[in-house]
Structures are given as structure tokens and as C-alpha cells.
């Protein structure tokens, strides 16, 4: 049995597929909610089966010109219809979508990434309405990032619009986008992590309760969050006759467009600016001299070039605002810049967007508690490690934070890096370094093995050292390692 390739939603072998003679098929684990179709992988290629029950809407997407419009505007991933054996019964056709380099989730986005994903969804809904269609899903998981831009990935999210029908995904949009954004903007930016515990989006009663009372004075938030939460509470048990009467209420297309525009204005009005101190120049706050910084840049570039083949996927762990990530991304490697600090990720994203940079995706990630597999069977949304391995891992100015800041034994740290990818560029920061001294200033030194010899011995179990270079004008050492 072959393993499914990395960077796609979790897949498992599907006994239902009529394809035992064709090739091993892996059906997407997080792709079961919608009967319109599902994702599967065969021979390492990602496909989406479109079921006959959705045929009418799928054909309308193409015939209405909406598909062409979305592709021309680079708002949705393109696909081609392929003549291959279906992976399940009831197939209308099989499509092969263009592959996204790395799948990310809303609880990993910075504020502006989240905001741009929301605005993309509303733009897609607007264009759909212009073409006589409507979005039946407004899930944040239908948006991914590519070259500093959000892109819609679910081709099966469209339905023919029926005049007078309310927007079925209105509540979902608020739960997946507006609620989290309002909480991030008006309460605490770290509350995006609530999306990790609520895979169906944030419950509206909870969002309304967590938001400050003054948000009642914000027209958009009053309408779309507080009143909606109240309406939902009031009608929660309207399953019977009253529910039917309610369903008969019509919403004109003009009103629907007004709702979408109002949601757009509300999302645009939400801002987040980190405290002035956090916006400071991150790299000035380190203890590097200009010469040391320059030398470290040169060494990282040299090490990458020494790998022989250019790494396809690079994970920069503890990337800060991405100064070193860019050494890889500018060489054409698909580079993911992870950092714990939402302000650093925000700054990195805004820079990428402004400069229209390619191949770089910044994400919020706490390496001491990386994204787990969540949802049904723990595999609707992948853990960080199951989205790997990367071809190259960068761990610069990171080891002391994990080993001393979080008590991770050096051997465990090496094992984690080995799980992340086969090549590693890692920086050893000694105890005599001012950054480590700062970490140890407020606590007892219980790290007798944290020495360069101890570091090398611990890493030797998992890696072989290919290069070892001291960084000029510092006490730090940079290594290029290869997994054993």
C-alpha cells in the first residue's frame, strides 16, 4: 500500500470504491458532509467526484459563465474534467482540480488573512448571484491561500438561485467568518483558536456573549451577530408548523444583495492593529550585529544550495516576520513561515500582499501545541505533521525557546524535527548568549545537558551533520543536517 502524498486533506483507503483493479483509491476523510460529491486520491493525484444529484447545478456553474469568471479573476481553483473510473456510485463526472501547495486552516490565519478570506467568500457570492447562482456553503475551510491571496477551492459549493429564497449559508458565514473576525478585532486576536474547538463555526450565542456590549452600537455587528443570535435562540425549536410558515417568507434578490453588501461593509470595518511595541522591528530586538545577520543569511543560502535538488516544500519553524523564509521562497520553494506571534504573522502577510510575493505562506502555529487532527475520526482537518513532511526544515533561533522556554529535552526536539522533514538547518544558541540568559533570568537552570556537545549528541541519534559553521560575531552555530 502506498501512502497518500502530503499536503492534501487526510485520505483513507475506501473499500466502497469499484476500483480494486484500477489503482488504490483514497477517499478524502473530511469530504463526507456534502452529498454533491467528494475528494479522492488515486496514484497520488487529487480528484473530485461530482455526483448525479448535483449534475444540474454543476452544469449551471459552467453554462452560466460563472466558472469562467471566477477562474479569470483568479478567485477559484481551475479544474479539468477527466475520463477516469469513478471512486463511488452515482458519479456524474470526475474533475481534477489544480493542486494547492499547502492546506491551511482558519485557526492558523492572521487577522488580515482571515479578513481577506471572508471578503473573497462574499465576492464569490456576489458574482454567483450576478450569474443566477448562489453559494450553498460559506465554510472557512473552502478558502486556501496561494501567493499571498485567498482562493476558493470548493467547486461544488454553488447552486442555482431561486428568486425569493433566503441565503441558506448566511448563518454559516457568520459562524465561520464574521463571528471569529469580530471577536479577534473587538476582544482578542487569539480567539481565532476557538475555530479549532468548533469545527462547524462558532456558536452564535457564544460569540454574542463574548463580544463587548458596545458592539451592539456597531450597526453591522448588531444586525448580523447580535440580532441573528437572538433570532436563532428564539426559533431554535421551530421544527414544526411555525417553522414551515417561516420558511414561506421571501427575501427578494435586491434584499439578498443588500445583505451581502452589508456583510462586506461590516467585515471591512473590522480592524486589528497590534500594540505599537509589537510592531517594532523584530530583528532589531535580537542580539545580532549587522555582520552576524548578514553572515547567517549567507550561510542559510549556501546550505540550501548545497542540497543539490531544490526543496519543493520548506517549513520555517519560528519564522518571525520571514526574513530567512524568503531565502527559500525567492528560490522558488513553496515556503511556509510558522510563528507563534499573531503580530509577526500579520506583518509578514501584509508585506507579502503589498509586494505581491510568491511562494510564501505565513501561518500562526504554536510549536509546543501544533494543530491537531480535528473533526470526525480526528481526520476532517489534518494535524500539522500529517500535512508534511517538508523537504527542508528551518529552525533558526528556535532551539532555546523550545528546550529552555518549554523544557523539551534536546532528544525529543531532534525527533520532532526529524518528523517534520529529511533535511534540517538548525541554529544552536549557547547559554552564554544574551537571549538564553534572558530566558534563564527568571528561572532555575535545570538544563545541565544544554551545551553544544549535548546538543550534537542528542541530534546525532536522528541526524547526520553535513555542515557546521559558527556565525560570525556571535556565539551561535549553524548546522545543516540530514535525517538518518
Amino acid at each position, binding site marked *: 500500500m502506498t501512502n497518500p502524498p502530503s499536503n492534501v486533506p487526510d485520505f483513507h483507503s475506501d473499500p466502497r470504491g469499484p476500483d480494486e483493479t484500477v489503482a488504490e483509491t483514497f477517499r478524502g476523510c473530511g469530504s463526507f458532509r456534502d452529498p454533491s460529491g467528494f475528494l479522492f486520491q488515486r496514484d497520488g493525484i487529487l480528484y473530485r467526484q461530482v455526483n448525479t444529484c448535483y449534475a444540474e447545478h454543476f452544469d449551471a456553474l459552467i453554462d452560466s459563465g460563472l466558472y469562467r469568471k471566477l477562474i479569470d479573476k483568479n478567485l477559484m481553483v481551475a479544474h479539468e474534467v477527466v475520463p477516469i473510473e469513478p471512486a463511488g456510485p452515482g458519479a456524474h463526472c470526475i474533475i481534477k482540480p489544480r493542486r494547492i501547495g499547502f492546506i491551511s486552516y482558519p485557526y492558523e490565519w492572521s487577522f488580515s488573512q482571515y479578513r481577506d478570506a471572508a471578503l473573497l467568500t462574499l465576492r464569490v457570492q456576489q458574482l454567483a448571484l450576478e450569474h443566477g447562482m448562489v453559494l450553498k456553503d460559506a465554510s472557512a475551510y473552502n478558502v486556501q491561500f496561494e501567493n499571498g491571496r485567498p482562493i476558493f477551492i470548493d467547486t461544488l459549493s454553488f447552486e442555482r438561485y431561486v428568486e425569493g429564497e433566503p441565503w441558506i449559508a*448566511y448563518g454559516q458565514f457568520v459562524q465561520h467568518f464574521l463571528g471569529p473576525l469580530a471577536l479577534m478585532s473587538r476582544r482578542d486576536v487569539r480567539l481565532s483558536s476557538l475555530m479549532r474547538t468548533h469545527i462547524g463555526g462558532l456558536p452564535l450565542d457564544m460569540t454574542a456573549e463574548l463580544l463587548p456590549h458596545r458592539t451592539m452600537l456597531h450597526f453591522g455587528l448588531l444586525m448580523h451577530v447580535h440580532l441573528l443570535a437572538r*433570532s*436563532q*435562540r428564539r426559533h431554535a425549536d421551530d421544527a414544526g408548523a411555525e417553522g414551515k410558515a*417561516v420558511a414561506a*417568507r421571501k*427575501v427578494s434578490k435586491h434584499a439578498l444583495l443588500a*445583505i451581502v*453588501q*452589508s456583510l462586506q461593509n461590516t467585515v471591512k470595518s473590522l480592524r486589528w492593529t497590534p500594540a505599537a511595541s509589537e510592531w517594532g522591528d523584530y530583528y532589531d530586538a535580537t542580539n545580532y550585529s549587522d555582520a552576524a545577520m548578514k553572515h547567517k543569511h549567507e550561510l542559510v543560502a549556501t546550505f540550501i544550495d548545497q542540497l543539490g535538488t531544490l526543496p519543493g516544500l520548506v517549513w520555517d519553524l519560528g519564522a518571525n516576520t520571514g526574513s530567512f523564509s524568503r531565502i527559500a521562497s525567492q528560490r522558488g520553494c513553496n515556503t511556509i513561515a510558522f510563528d507563534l506571534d499573531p503580530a509577526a504573522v500579520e506583518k509578514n502577510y501584509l508585506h507579502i500582499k503589498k509586494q505581491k510575493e510568491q511562494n510564501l505562506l505565513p501561518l500562526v502555529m504554536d510549536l509546543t501545541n501544533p494543530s491537531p487532527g480535528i473533526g470526525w475520526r480526528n481526520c476532517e482537518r489534518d494535524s500539522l505533521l500529517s500535512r508534511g513532511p517538508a523537504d527542508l526544515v528551518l529552525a533558526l533561533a528556535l532551539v532555546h525557546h523550545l528546550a529552555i522556554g518549554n523544557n523539551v529535552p534536546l532528544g525529543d526536539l531532534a525527533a520532532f524535527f526529524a518528523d517534520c522533514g529529511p533535511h534540517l538547518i538548525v541554529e544552536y544558541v549557547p547559554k552564554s548568549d544574551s537571549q538564553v540568559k534572558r530566558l534563564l533570568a527568571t528561572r532555575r537552570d535545570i538544563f545541565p545537558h544544554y551545551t553544544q556537545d549535548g546538543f550534537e549528541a542528542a541530534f546525532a541519534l536522528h541526524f547526520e551533520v553535513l555542515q557546521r559553521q559558527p556565525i560570525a560575531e556571535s556565539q551561535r552555530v549553524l548546522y545543516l543536517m540530514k535525517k538518518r
Partner: protein
Amino acid sequence: MLQLAYLDPATGAMIIQAVVGGVLAALLTVKLWFTRVKLFILGLFGRKHVSDDESTE
């Protein structure tokens, strides 16, 4: 009650759209009329037209 609200988010969200949609559509209509009147008056003084769509983007 709250648990139900979480399980069945649809009904409340569908109902409120009739109300919210009505209010917002009315506001939008007023805004469009106001913009038209403004453009008409500006037009009298020979000012260049600005597309409503573009200016709100």
C-alpha cells in the same frame, strides 16, 4: 435551548434575513437615490461623474 440553537442554526438565520434584508434593502435604495441626486446636482456644475461602485470599493 442553547444546545438546540447550536444544532439547528438554520431557522433563525433564515427568518431574520426577511427582516434584516428588508431594512438593508430600504437603506440601499435610499443611498442609491441620494447618490443619484448628488450626481445630478454635481452634473449641473459640470463635475465629472464618479461611478458609485468604484467609489465604495
